[in-house]
């Protein structure tokens, strides 16, 4: 399977598991099922897992695609340092969180999904992966002056104006379609 980063799949799986865990919990509490206390725990655990898993990690190779609005979550998750960086911790955490879900029917599915996510995270940890925050680039782009007298930063390669005038016999090969005539006096 080549250079797969297991953590990326584990992340998708655990996010889905968190949603399923929370939904099962909501059904259990709203329907006032027996064992609704487990369902209430399921809601809390599901929401917690979703918040933890929402920010995607930076990939080791290639471009990382952020989820919409994940920056604030990234900052929160980053604040916990090694606890969130290390995938062994995450694998163990998910395994622990999923256990109470097995005691009630409504949260069983969330339990199993979170358990699978925990196993994939374990695989990621064994392969030496860890969580890296995606942070915006720190250097600001140079502000473009309002005046159009500032030349563009990387203009297309153009020869000086005297050569840019279209010659009649070379109309076909002329590369530039000047919207206004270019003369030496301008």
């Amino acid at each position, binding site marked *: 399977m*080549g*250079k797969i980063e297991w953590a*990326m799949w584990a992340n998708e799986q655990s996010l889905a*598991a968190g949603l399923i865990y929370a939904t099962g919990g909501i059904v259990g509490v709203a329907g006032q099922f027996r064992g609704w206390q487990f369902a209430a725990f399921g809601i809390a655990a599901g929401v917690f897992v979703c918040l933890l898993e929402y920010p995607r990690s930076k990939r080791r190779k290639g471009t990382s695609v952020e989820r919409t609005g994940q920056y604030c979550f990234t900052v929160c998750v980053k604040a916990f340092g090694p606890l969130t960086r290390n995938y062994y911790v995450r694998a163990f955490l998910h395994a622990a969180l999923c256990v109470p879900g097995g005691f009630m029917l409504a949260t069983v*599915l969330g339990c*199993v*999904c979170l358990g699978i996510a925990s196993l994939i995270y374990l695989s990621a940890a064994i392969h030496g992966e860890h969580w890296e925050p995606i942070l915006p680039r720190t250097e600001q782009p140079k502000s473009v002056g309002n005046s159009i007298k500032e030349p563009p930063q990387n203009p297309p390669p153009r020869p000086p104006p005297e050569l840019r005038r279209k010659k009649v016999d070379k109309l076909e090969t002329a590369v530039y379609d000047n919207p206004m005539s270019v003369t030496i006096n301008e």
Partner: protein
Amino acid sequence: MGNFAANEGLSIFVILVWLGINAFLFVHFYMAFLVDRYYYTRVILGHALSWARAPAACLNFNCMLILLPVCRNLLSFLRGSIQCCSRTAARQLDRNLTFHKLVAYMIALHTAIHIIAHLFNFERFMDSQLMINNSHLPYVLSQIGKNDNRSYLNPIRTNETSQTIVMFTTIAGLTGVVITLALILIITSSMEVIRRSYFEVFWFTHHLFIVFFIGLVAHGIGRIVRGQTVESIIVHDPKKCHSKFETWGQSGTDCPKPDFAGNPPMTWKWVVGPMFLYVCERLVRFYRSQQKVVITKVVMHPSKTLELQMKKKGFKMEVGQYVFMQCPSISQLEWHPFTLTSAPEEDHLSVHIRIVGDWTQALYTACGGDKTVVLDAWTLPKLAVDGPFGTASEDVFRYEVVMLVGAGIGVTPFASVLKSVWYKHVQENKNVFTKKIYFYWLCPETQAFEWFADLLQSLERQMTEKDMRDFLSYNIYLTRWKDAEAAHFRVQYEAENDPITGLKQKTRYGKPNWDNEFSAIATQHPGSKVGVFLCGPTALAKALGKQCISHTESGTEFIFNKENF
């Protein structure tokens, strides 16, 4: 506005019909469980019964549909047959993957509704077993069939169990859990991020659909949805007898004990057809892959591009099609799609492969890419080729005027088109309907596609010889350049051939002004249908789609076709 209908009308119609059928099935099966047969079932479950059965019917329908859009060979065959009648209908089949995803989302939605309703059902069944009170109708109903275990209503047979245990010990419950897990794993590994980066994970996990379908068919075998039997309804009318439940079956009443039975499984009737078609599809793919493929030539192009020329007996293709290739010595299970870069008029088939991942790297090594000596033909690896499969480029020659836009690697299918165009003209085929081709190539650097620039050079030479320079008008746009190179280009402005590509047509810098281009073409060709073909990123597709819609005026009609990879 009119072009919007031409471009999108059929898609919208298909989606509306599909949604309509879903809605109809939902409502119909909801009402079907509100009849007298299920009166006593509803006494325990309430409307949760209908809320579980309605999405089940929709699930049957959607699981039937989901296998059809991925039967590539069947779709190719349909496409070929429909093309003579309607170009629009044939183009609709290009959107098969979009439809497959839509149906998958619908399956996920209905699964969620179905599961939530069943959570309530299980809870209520358990409740009625635990409420041990002979004056409570649900409890009385749950005791029916205790002796023979046949005519019971409540699938939870005793009060010394829990829903979770029952779920894992009934066929319906167990298969339900298994197939839901399979579905969740399939969905999470099909997310775009995973699919684009680690195709193998997506492909292998997707094969859990086999588990899904087996479990789906087995899901109803236990007959867990129970209603009153037909014979029982005749002698025991629930509307009259429900209040007299304390005296059922006793002598002197006209209400004997009701009998219940389960509904036979229905799902297999829906899915057996598509499952059979899909099995045939895989068999066809396997058979085609067993046909012998001989590599006749291996060319190493600069910038890590490998060209393979092959021969396969009986292989026929059209322009712009793609094939799936497998190399058993690298991987038994991996098939990768590649666009064909040869023209139908040539005697071999060729693909240009960019070396970007594990599989392509291994192929490069196996074909002797890193060796400098010439390899003997018998040392080259065995290959299997499945295809060709049709894409939108097939339609190119049905338009009088054609705009081809290729971005980066998207230029590949157009290699086949341009070569074929040239062969057709060389053979002086007066039946060629296409009169003018405008070709736009946008790329960050031409080095990666030097092989394509070579092709254009040779075409240019041949066109000049035959005095046919007007037929093909091509424009290359370089979207990135370095400062040092820019200085060189400025100096070379006056040279006859372009400094980068060596072509007579000069390379342009930056992105094309599509408004101008479309207007110019519309003015040049009033009253014609112009086919616009794009192989490139979605953003460009949106931009071109908008241009097509806005520049279609009375007379000139721009019709947009996007490649789908």
